[in-house]
């Protein structure tokens, strides 16, 4: 199987760096990053990643709004999306899950097992 490509959309540079190392250096995936919903949509359309990790609370286009845009475009409609969120109250998780994402990864996460969590949510063989 070819190398997995992941797109991370998160406005926090520190978190982007941690995820890049976690999924890049540790799991050996190709990691693309975008710091805003709009940049993320552009990158997703151009690169067609295997999965998009999407922060929920972002200035401008937030996670659910970005998801809407991604679902509205032919190039990105089929790409599975996982929310990554620090707003991980039970009620919020249920609401996010009902928006039609493949899963929700609460922050903080363990960088050594992040790729396993992503793979498990998508049914990939890790």
């Amino acid at each position: 199987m070819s190398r997995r490509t992941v797109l991370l959309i998160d406005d926090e540079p520190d978190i982007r760096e941690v995820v890049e190392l976690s999924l890049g250096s540790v799991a050996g995936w190709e990691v693309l990053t975008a710091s805003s919903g709009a940049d993320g949509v552009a990158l997703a359309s151009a690169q067609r990643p295997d999965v998009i990790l999407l922060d929920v609370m972002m200035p401008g286009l937030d996670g659910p709004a970005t998801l809407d845009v991604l679902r509205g475009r032919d190039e990105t409609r089929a790409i599975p999306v996982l929310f990554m969120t620090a707003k991980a109250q039970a009620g919020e998780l249920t609401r996010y899950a009902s928006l039609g994402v493949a899963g929700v990864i609460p922050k903080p996460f363990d960088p050594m097992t992040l790729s396993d969590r992503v793979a498990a949510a998508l049914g990939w063989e890790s």
Partner: protein
Amino acid sequence: MAAAGGTPSRGPGWVNPYRRRGLLRRAWPFLAATGVAFVLLPVSATGAIDSVDVIVGAALFLAIIAAIVFVPWDRVPRTLTIFPPLVYFGVVDLLRDATGGGASGYAALVLLPVLWVALYSGRAELIAVLAGVWSTFVIPILVDKTRYPEGDWRFAVLLTLLSAFIGFATQALVENVRLRARNLSAVMTSAAEGIITLTPEGHGVFVNPSAARMLGYEPSELEGRVLFDLIVDGEFRSGQGDAIGDEHFRRKDGTTFPVLFSSTPIQLDNGETSGIVVTFSDITERREIERMKDEFVSVVGHELRTPLTSIRGSLGLMAGGVFGELDDQGKRMLDIAVSNTDRLVRLINDILDIERIESGRVTMQKVTCRSDDLVAQAIEAMQGQAETMGVGVVSQVDPVLLRADHDRIMQTLTNLISNAIKFSPRGEEVRVTAHPTADTVLFSVADHGRGVPADKRETIFERFGQVDASDARDKGGFGLGLPIARSIVEQHGGSLWVDTEPGRGATFWFTLPRSSEAVGEVDGSSGDNGRAALVVEDDADLARVLRAMLARQGVEAVVTPSAEEAVHLIDDVAPVLLVLDIELTGADGLAVVDHLREHPEIPPIPVVVYTVRELSEHDRQRLTLGKTLFFTKGRVAPEEFERRVADLLKEAAPAS
């Protein structure tokens, strides 16, 4: 008393007895009694009737009526108001004279002015009227001894005393009632809460100013109107006891506002209901504050977790050796940093959690669960901790169905089991049981640890209320697990308590309401309430969404994360629908359909396959037994998913 300078003299709180409002209602018994007295004249007289007396009496009575109606009583001195009753004694004397003098029964009419003054005037007026009664009998004796013999003195004394007794007793009663009415009215009028009383048919009887203001009406606009439609969705009528609820009321302009209200029937001594009292308060502001608090808690949680994500991530990468191996001491330091970051995250989660649960703003998503599943899953989740601490966990459970929020009860059980493990000496056992009682399921988690001292048996359920201040450090808890567990149980209508003997261990007990069905009784043919779907899904979040979605279709979800368990559950649950994830730990979802194929005696069950995997044609054929729908996770809109599942349910087992 002469009014100096023409200023009418009236006492404080004086009410004009002849005020127009309600005059007829107050006066009609007096008019009627006098009217009847005139009508009965022909049959009452012992001899010939003196028609001059009758005509003068009638004229006097009409003059009294005219005076009452036409004199501007509000502007004349209060003293003058006594004249109509006093003049009435003249009417009484004329009628007595017309009907046989001392022997006439018309003497009883003296009670009418006494009653009038006792009911509607003051103490001074009553005394004046009693003097009038006395005169009514004494003057005729002095004037005409033939028709009114000396013996009538006794009659005068007796009737005056009787009048005094009736007058003063009536006046005391009336004052008492007025005082109570004034107090009650002051309370009702000044109350910030809205208060409305209704007839049993819903007509407004009394509406206090707060109620009228909140509803945008004048009180008089609501009195007499049917008010059942003020409530947007629900009803005031409450059979025997109080009804307390959260509702929306409708304003005059059609807008609505949230209220907390109670409606209480007014019960008479004979058990009948004479009306309903509704009290309510506008909780718009409270709702807004709750919303702001929720948002604040959510934002604070987010703002705290975001830097922790970077810290935890960086530390995790270092501890994982991504940047090369550290020496032992360096590793030890990093492990300390990682575990304390994790601890800080748990603390934040617990604080936010208890805040929301205790305020009752987290609704419990109640579904039908099995007690044995809950215990097994909780023990499974705590197995790692138990092994690390060298403590065994055993269980003894009678399977019972109960209505509970699966995840929250798991949280309760894992909190209790985790505590029990922490406080158990190495090599000991933690024992978890669940047994049915008449209408509850009784769970227990027992350890052989140090127990809880008598003075701490309640404080351990308070926030940060650990037995020993050093426990937070030594045992790694915060003192929030038990309060969270108790709140969750209480939100289910159960209770949680501890039995303990210091030095010999503690047993935590809690009860949850049982489901009315027994295990295995969930029957597809028993109507909507009994319809259950078996959801085989190992992603707890997704399971929760599916559960909520199925509940909207009137179907209860029995969720299991494993295919092996699903096979066992099929007989117990008799599901009307099987929702199947294919990617599971252990045997995959295909095994469940294989089981159905191998057991043709099981009635056909429609299957919804919901998976992330792109299925091969071979897999699809293997999964298709009867009606089968295929969905790929994340690629179907939730509404579309729900609609098609609803259609499938209707086709398969129409809800009758």
